[in-house]
């Protein structure tokens, strides 16, 4: 197996607030890593740093062997290979579903309109959204919007998919349809890093789970071990709180 991601000593502060305090993590190709931890533990910031949406203060990151923290790294080239899906979908409201999906393949990858539309339509049909092709985002349910956002990310053919609490903004009844899509992608071998509050889902889909606390990865391991016999006291406390809240 080759490395999809290697992170060494990643630090990130917002003003005087140190959000990430030295993260080390490797992700193998075709591996799915679940990031768990309380709100404010740095999960989102970590994912945004990996896509260079937040400037990295200190530390080094390689994606598919390419160092993205190198001073001469081509940010736009890196972002073509890494895709991120956000908690709040962030679809472009002035474009149809297909418009959302074809924009970057046309402008960034240089596909012509016909190719981009074919690729977009295929993906939409694969995820049961073929009939929503020409609708505008505000006509769709939250679950549909999030699935469109995932399709938009996939249309770029990324090597790595980052998912930032993609079900947190959804009604409970809509969560399943989005999780099914992600399960599907995991089965297809997509390399993913998933920040999530859905512990049951993390247990099912992740090959490895990492627990973040106060900007550090406190503990990582296979999900069976992490959820049944965590080594760290803090991990146990976190999981107990989750169970008490009925989220597992």
């Amino acid at each position, binding site marked *: 197996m080759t490395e999809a991601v290697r992170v060494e000593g990643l630090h990130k502060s917002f003003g005087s607030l140190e959000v990430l305090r030295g993260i080390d993590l490797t992700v193998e190709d075709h591996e799915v890593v679940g990031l768990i931890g309380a709100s404010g533990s740095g999960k989102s910031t970590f994912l*945004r740093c990996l*896509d260079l*949406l937040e400037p990295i203060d200190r530390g080094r990151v390689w994606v598919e062997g390419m160092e993205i923290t190198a001073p001469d790294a081509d940010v*736009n*080239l890196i*972002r*073509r290979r*890494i*895709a*991120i899906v*956000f908690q*709040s979908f*962030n*679809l*472009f*409201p*002035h474009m149809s579903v297909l418009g959302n999906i074809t*924009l*970057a393949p046309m*402008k*960034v*990858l240089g596909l012509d309109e016909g190719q981009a539309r074919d690729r977009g339509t295929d993906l939409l049909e694969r995820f049961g959204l073929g009939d929503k092709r020409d609708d*505008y*985002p*505000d006509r769709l349910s939250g679950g549909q919007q999030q699935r469109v956002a995932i399709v*938009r*990310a996939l249309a*770029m053919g990324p090597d790595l998919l980052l998912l930032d609490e993609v079900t947190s903004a959804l009604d409970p009844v809509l969560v399943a349809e989005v999780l099914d899509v992600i399960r599907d992608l995991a089965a297809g071998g997509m390399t993913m890093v998933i920040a999530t509050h859905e512990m049951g889902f993390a247990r099912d889909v992740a090959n490895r789970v990492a627990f973040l606390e106060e900007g550090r990865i406190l503990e990582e391991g296979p999900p069976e071990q992490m959820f049944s016999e965590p080594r760290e006291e803090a991990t146990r406390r976190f999981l107990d709180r989750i169970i008490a809240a009925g989220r597992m």
Partner: protein
Amino acid sequence: MALTSTVVFIAAIVIVAVSSPGWEEFSFKFLNVPELLESLPGVGRAFLVNIQLFLIAEVLVLILALGVAVLRSLPGPVFFPIRLLAAAYTDLFRGIPTVLVIYALGLGAPALQIQGVPKSPFFWAVVSLVLVYTAYVAEVYRAGIESVHESQVSAARSLGLTRWQSTRYVVLPQAVRRIIPPLLNDFLGLQKDTALVALVGVVEAFRQGQIDSSATFNFTPFLATAFYFVLITIPLARLIDWLVTRDRRRRQTGGIT
């Protein structure tokens, strides 16, 4: 009810005006129907100059203001001088009374007698209006750009679009939709301000009214001037109101299209 109160209100004003001691002389000087009919065609032809002025100015303002707004939104310390320059320009030209800019350029620029610099007052009138209104409209554009949520830029950049592509395909199309009413409002002001260029010798509707008026010592020709301005500006004002209402309704229902 609304109709009754309106009729009563207007009737009261008319009665007060008509029964005033100076009414007869006033109506002769300002509301003289034969004079009005006499000056309407000439003022109408002159108003075509106003139309030319604002149509040319509006197209230029639309393009240049967008440029200024984009320059002002450039991020990072490297672009600080450009941002500063753009900010200084918008502050200055929103601060100086339009009439002074028209005087300065309409009379000053030709007086320099520089080879190749046009002497036509019409040319300098357009330049003045464009300079002033580009400053206003640039601010409208900027407000529109800033109203598009940062997460839209994140989404665009994360897909590999460059900063410029994100602005061009994601931010601006959303911004422009939101700024159409305030933009048209500024154009309303621009259309009225075309009357100011009479001061530097352009014969347009206001100047023509003045000419007619001084020929007969009667002020009614200005009524003809007002008539043509209102003919253009009131429908535009109604259009703006309609767009604002439609926009509000759409936001309430969460629609987009």
